[in-house]
C-alpha cells in the first residue's frame, strides 16, 4: 500500500460518523424550531407585522411556500401535512422534524445540546487537521490541480462518472474545504448570533451578519446548502461504490484500485 492509498485517519472517521448523527439531529430539530415561527426576515428585527421574504403557511386547508412574490401550493408537505393519522398545520411535516409532533421546548433542547457537539467537534477536527497535516496534504489543492485546464478535465471525468479511487480529486477537495472551513463555521456563527447573550458578549456577530434576523435567514439557507452537499455526497458515494467507501470510512482500510466497491 503506497502513501497515496492510505486510508482515512481515526480523527476523520470519528468526526465523520459523529457529524453524520449530529447533522441529522440538528437539521430535524432545527426544522421544528423553524415551525414555531415559519417566516424569515432580513435585518435586526422581524415579526408578524414586518415583511417576510420567505413564509410557509396554510390558508383554508391549503399549504403554501412563499419566497418573495412567488407562491407555490405545497399541501401535504409544507404548511399542512398528515402525521400520526391527523392533519396538522405545521410548516415542516412530522416525518422531517425532531420531535415528530410540535414541541418547541424539546426541539430546542435537542438542538442546543447537539450544537455543542457540532461546534466542539468542528473546532477539534479543523485544529487537529491543521496539526497533523491532513488539511495541507489531503484537502488544500495543489496549484496544478486548480488550473483551469485541470478543473475542466476533472469536471469532464465527473460527468463520465469516472472517479479516482486512490485520492481525493480536486472537486472533492474543494467541496470538503468549503464545508469544513466556510459552511460549518458560518452555521455555528449564525446560530450564535441568534443568542441574545452571545450578541452581548460578541457584538461583532451582529455586524458580521447584519442583524439577528438576517443571521436566522442565513442559518436556514446554510442548512439547506448542507443538505445539498449531503445529497451530492451520497450520490457520489453510490456512484463510486458504496460498500468499499463506507467500509473505508468505518475501518480506515482502503481497498486497492480494482478490488471491487
Amino acid at each position, binding site marked *: 500500500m503506497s502513501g497515496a492509498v492510505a486510508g482515512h485517519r481515526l480523527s476523520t472517521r470519528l468526526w465523520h460518523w459523529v457529524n453524520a448523527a449530529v447533522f*441529522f439531529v440538528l437539521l430535524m430539530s432545527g426544522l421544528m424550531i423553524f415551525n414555531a*415561527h415559519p417566516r424569515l426576515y432580513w435585518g435586526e*428585527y422581524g415579526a408578524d407585522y414586518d415583511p417576510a421574504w420567505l413564509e410557509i403557511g396554510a390558508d383554508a386547508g391549503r399549504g403554501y411556500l412563499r419566497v418573495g412574490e412567488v407562491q407555490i401550493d405545497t399541501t401535504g408537505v409544507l404548511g399542512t401535512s398528515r402525521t400520526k393519522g391527523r392533519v396538522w398545520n405545521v410548516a415542516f411535516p412530522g416525518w422531517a422534524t425532531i420531535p415528530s409532533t410540535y414541541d*418547541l421546548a*424539546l426541539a*430546542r*433542547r435537542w438542538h*442546543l445540546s447537539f450544537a455543542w457537539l457540532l461546534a466542539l467537534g468542528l473546532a477539534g477536527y479543523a485544529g487537529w487537521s491543521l496539526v497533523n497535516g491532513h488539511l495541507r496534504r489531503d484537502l488544500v489543492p495543489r496549484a496544478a490541480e486548480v488550473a483551469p485546464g485541470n478543473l475542466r478535465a476533472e469536471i469532464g471525468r465527473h460527468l463520465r462518472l469516472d472517479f479516482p479511487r486512490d485520492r481525493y480529486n480536486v472537486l472533492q477537495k474543494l467541496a470538503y474545504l468549503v464545508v469544513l472551513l466556510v459552511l460549518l463555521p458560518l452555521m455555528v456563527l449564525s446560530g450564535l448570533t441568534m443568542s*441574545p447573550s452571545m450578541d452581548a458578549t460578541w457584538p461583532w456577530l*451582529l455586524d458580521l451578519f447584519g442583524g439577528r434576523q438576517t443571521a436566522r435567514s442565513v442559518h436556514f439557507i446554510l442548512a439547506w446548502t448542507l443538505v445539498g452537499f449531503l445529497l451530492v455526497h451520497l450520490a457520489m458515494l453510490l456512484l463510486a461504490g458504496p460498500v468499499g467507501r463506507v467500509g473505508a470510512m468505518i475501518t480506515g482500510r482502503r481497498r486497492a484500485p480494482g478490488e471491487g466497491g
Partner: protein
Amino acid sequence: MARLLTRRRLLRGAGLAAPALLLAGCDRLGASPSFRDMVLGSGEWLSWRVHRLIGANALAREYDPAEMSPRFRTNGNTSPRAPEWQRHAAAGFADWRLAVGGLVEGPRGFSLAELRALPVRSQITRHDCVEGWSAIGKWTGTPLAEVLNAVRLLPVARYIVLHCADDFGGEPYYESIDLVDAFHPQTILAWGMNDAPLPLGHGAPLRLRVERQLGYKHAKFVMRIEAVANLAATGRGRGGFWEDVAGYDWYAGI
C-alpha cells in the same frame, strides 16, 4: 460474491431504514424525563456556565430610534383575569404597590411614584422571542439592582423570582433569574415603553426587561418580587411558568 451482495443489501437496507429508526428513537428518547433532563439538559447548563464565564457583564446592543420596529407585537397574556389586577388597571394603578420580600433585610412595597423616584434608565433594545421573531423597542424603568439594594439581599439569596398577575388555565405566571442578571445594569423593571406609559398588553404596570435572555423571561404584570436561595419551592420547581409546564430551558440566553 455472495458476501458482497449480502453486505450491499445490508447497507442499502440500513440506509433506507436508518432515518425512520433514528426519528422514532429520538421521539422515544425525548419522551424520557431522565434523557430530557440529563442528556438534553446538558446544553442549557453548558451555555449558561460558558456565557457567565466569557461575558457575565457584557451589555446587550442598544439601538438608535431609527432602528426601532414600526409596530411591536404583544405576546402571551395581554389582560390578566385576576380581580386585584383588574381593579388596579381600572384605577390607573394609582394605589398599586410592588411587594418586595423573601430573603431580604427590609421587605417593603414600592408605589409607581417611588419606583420612578429611584434612578431611571432608558434603553432601545431588541426583544427576541423563543419562537424566533425579534422586535426593537424603547424601555424605560428602574434598574432591578436599585430596588434590591433598597431592601438589601440576605447573603443566602441566589435567585430573584418575579410573581405576576396573569395566569394560564389558573396556573400563575412567574419567572426567575440569577443574581448576575438581577444586578446587570440593563436589567430594569420597566414602567414605560416607546416614551409612553407601559401599555396594558405589554405588561402594565411593570414588567421585567432582562435583555440578554429570550422573551419568556421578561415577566409581565409583575406584582411581587421575592429573593430565594433556590427555585425548588416556587411553582413546580423549574424556575418559571413555561419551564414548569412545557419544559422550556430556565437559562434562555440562547
